[in-house]
């Protein structure tokens, strides 16, 4: 199929999509006057029922916890897929040139930034039930902070810190722990992912029962997953550079 034909097919499909989409949205409630009851109900009851002040995370980790569990396993499977695709049969392990890294100033700044980003990431993961944030955001912040190590030092240091087996174990633990928390109520003849922990006082760190615990376990899983992704891609780039050199 030539490019011209492909573009022709695209325009036909685009016109069809545009027509159907317009027909679909033209009778929606006016913008800003959403009538869905589900969200309104959750907004109204989440503080009483779950002692959580962030309704978004109450939905993510509790009311629609099953969906998030499935989504977490999408993350798990995608990371696994990346690692399988980019695995090196015979790893040219210490072939990479021992780069001595950037200047002392950059290293000191990176170390300070890493510490504060780590604290921010842990704060976001543990306060998901109280304020905007939660495990996904916290995990991404921690994993991105670790990239500073690679920038300031070199790949060998980054590799040692993300030490492969431990991070892999943490990723599996994070994903597994979520499922285990969900399965505990089954032993008491309650539905899967029932909020079975004591709810605590609204507005404190230890509140909202399983929401806080699941948020932390998701934080662990996301941190490990993105560390593995960073490690896998960096190794691919570096082994590629070595082949060219």
């Amino acid at each position: 199929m030539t490019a011209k034909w492909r573009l022709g097919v695209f325009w036909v499909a685009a016109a069809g999509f545009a027509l159907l989409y317009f027909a679909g949205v033209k009778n929606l409630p006016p913008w800003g006057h959403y009538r869905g009851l589900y969200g309104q109900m959750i907004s109204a009851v989440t503080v009483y029922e779950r002692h959580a002040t962030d309704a978004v995370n109450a939905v993510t980790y509790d009311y629609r916890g099953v969906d998030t569990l499935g989504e977490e396993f999408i993350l798990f499977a995608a990371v696994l897929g990346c690692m399988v695709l980019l695995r090196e049969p015979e790893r040219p392990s210490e072939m990479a040139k021992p780069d001595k890294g950037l200047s002392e100033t950059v290293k000191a700044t990176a170390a300070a930034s890493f510490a504060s980003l780590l604290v921010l990431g842990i704060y976001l993961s543990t306060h998901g039930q109280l304020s905007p944030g939660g495990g996904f955001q916290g995990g991404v912040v921690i994993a991105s902070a670790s990239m500073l190590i690679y920038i300031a030092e070199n790949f060998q240091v980054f590799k040692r810190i993300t030490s492969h087996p431990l991070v892999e174990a943490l990723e599996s633990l994070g994903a597994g722990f979520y499922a285990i928390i969900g399965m505990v109520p089954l032993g008491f003849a309650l539905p899967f992912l029932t909020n079975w922990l004591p709810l605590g006082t609204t507005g404190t760190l230890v509140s909202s029962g399983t929401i806080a615990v699941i948020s932390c376990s998701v934080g662990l899983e996301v941190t490990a997953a993105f560390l593995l992704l960073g490690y896998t891609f960096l190794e691919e780039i570096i082994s590629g550079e070595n082949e060219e050199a």
Partner: protein
Amino acid sequence: MTAFLHIYPYLIAGWIFLCGLYGIATSKHLVHMVISLAVMQTSTYVLLLNIGYRVHGAAPVFVGVSPGTVTVDPVVQALMLTDIVVEATIMALMLAMADRAHDRAGTLSPDDLRMMRG
């Protein structure tokens, strides 16, 4: 005119979707194709946030406000949150595939990737 303005935010979501689709249909480079897919997925964020918006609605975080306050819809926001995570990982997976395709075929142009090899 008001009627048009009420559906305008949804039309923007559709427009972004079509921009991404155009990028995929005319792509000459696998990395460009992955980014186009990300653009397509961005349209779902715009759509979800627009659907859940309520005039004068507060953020659905009940700190310092009474629990009865009218808020924007928390469900669509939670949906968007998971959407972003899935997008990031799927992009990583597709970039890994593009990398492997480049190793095997020596090209990143979808047009040259036609033949299958066992």
